[in-house]
């Protein structure tokens, strides 16, 4: 569904991605692991059209989308839940969700999606008229996820959705990822918590210093001694 080929993205002269190759298959949950500063966020931002790659191609269902503006990528069906959530703090929960549906023009289905979102996230319904900035971290993450879903993505990108959240909320988020996947959503998620990711992911990539250094199934990952030590701790 998504094929990333030899992507190079730089901040000024510093190349944060040095030729990344990976692929995301339709219907799967693909997980990207990597230490801090490896370039995970840079890759997500490049796919989402916020950063322009210097080189390489990104194919989505056969079309090259590398370097296209974010607006067109959303319209193609790729939506990113960004690192640190980035909710619109001075807008209400409902306005955040409506902003998520900006790329859509079908008013009726937007309204029914809004209701569906409230059903999935009852907390958000209770707080629909509250400013997003007043929500807890976990609620803000749920809001960021549902805001992305309001665009009706075909591929959902998530950048460290569990960052800084309590274990129970992290469980919640992974339950939602699984639910979405069961409903047919393709998910590409950046996650530091490999142990949690093992519960949902069909395929893993490991990125270090701007390059993919490992690629395999959960089984293969658990057999790899280096990864086991670095990402899963000793006992598994």
């Amino acid at each position, binding site marked *: 569904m998504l094929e990333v080929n030899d992507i190079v993205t730089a901040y000024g002269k510093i190349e944060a991605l040095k030729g990344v190759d990976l692929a995301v298959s339709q219907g799967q949950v693909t997980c990207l692991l990597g230490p801090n500063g490896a370039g995970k966020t840079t890759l997500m931002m490049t796919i989402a059209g916020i950063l322009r790659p210097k080189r390489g191609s990104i194919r989505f269902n056969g079309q090259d989308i590398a370097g296209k503006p974010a*607006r067109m990528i959303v319209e193609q069906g790729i939506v990113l839940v*960004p690192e640190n959530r*980035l909710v619109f703090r*001075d807008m209400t929960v409902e*306005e955040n969700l409506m*902003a998520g549906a900006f790329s859509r023009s079908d008013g009726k289905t937007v309204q029914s999606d809004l209701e569906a979102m409230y059903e999935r996230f009852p907390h958000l319904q209770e707080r629909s008229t509250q400013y997003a900035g007043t929500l807890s971290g976990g609620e803000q993450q749920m809001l960021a996820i549902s*805001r992305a879903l309001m665009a009706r993505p075909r591929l959902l990108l998530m950048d460290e959705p569990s960052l800084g959240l309590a274990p129970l909320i992290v469980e919640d988020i992974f339950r939602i990822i699984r639910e979405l996947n069961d409903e047919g959503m393709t998910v590409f998620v950046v996650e530091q918590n490999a142990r949690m990711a093992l519960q949902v992911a069909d395929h893993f990539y490991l990125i270090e210093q701007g390059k993919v250094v490992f690629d395999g199934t959960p089984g293969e990952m658990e057999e790899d001694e280096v990864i086991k030590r670095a990402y899963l701790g000793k006992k598994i």
Partner: protein
Amino acid sequence: MDLVDFVQSITDGLLFGATYALIGIGFTMIFGVMHKINLAYAATSIAGAYVSWAVGTLLPLPALVTFVVAAIGGGIVGYLVYLCCFKFIPVTSPLATLLGTVGMLILIDEIIVHETNGMPQPYPALFDDVYFEIGEFYGIRGDLLFIFFLSLIATAILLYILYRTKLGIATRAVAQQPVAAQLCGISIERTNASTFVITGLLGGLAGAMIGASVGVLSPLLTLPITIKGLIVTVIGGLGSIPGAIIAGLLVGAFENFFQALRGVTERDMYVMLLLFAFLTFRPGGIFSKTTSRD
């Protein structure tokens, strides 16, 4: 100065202050969305009024239509300012856009001076023959009351757009969190452009109201209105629309009071002192809130 003069000067000032409120809203909205000051904004506003004056010299317009033409003129000039000073100048050099807008302010001024030989031009007033007496001593000028209500309507329409339409959601989203706005499929460029058009419409209307209540248009208006607009923006708090509205009325009332008390030549000195008082004691403006951006 007795009580009657006091109340009368403040009332007139409050009503006229509605024009400052509109100018302040324009400055503050552009700042809110782009995080940049557009120093050519008040010039845009006066230019809009001049557009309607120019159209009026070609074919006579009813006064109300003049206002509409001024708003449209302001919208067009606002968009041109966006193209020249913001769209193609890299965002990484904030000083470049600032200087660009100074250049634009002077350019607009020069064009006006050139086209009118620097002479003030008559501008049609509306309801200047109406006067409402209130009690024995007080009264309200019909033309001031008219521009006040016109500002109210314009502000209400603006707030409706900002809080009840998709365009408004996009505008506020870009102002608060530009990266997330793009991830929602909102185009920053289009939102910037529409902000310049909307504030231009508002500015053109304000320019017409200023022309109408003074009775003439003159190139000497641009600089004072620029300064008043900036003062209103600072007092209201950069980026705050309610702040701009209240500060506009406040500055209008304040300056008119001191004009009645000390005369027209001294009045602006006191307005400047008000600015310094605010910068010292309430630098964030009336509604000082630190809008956090992550």
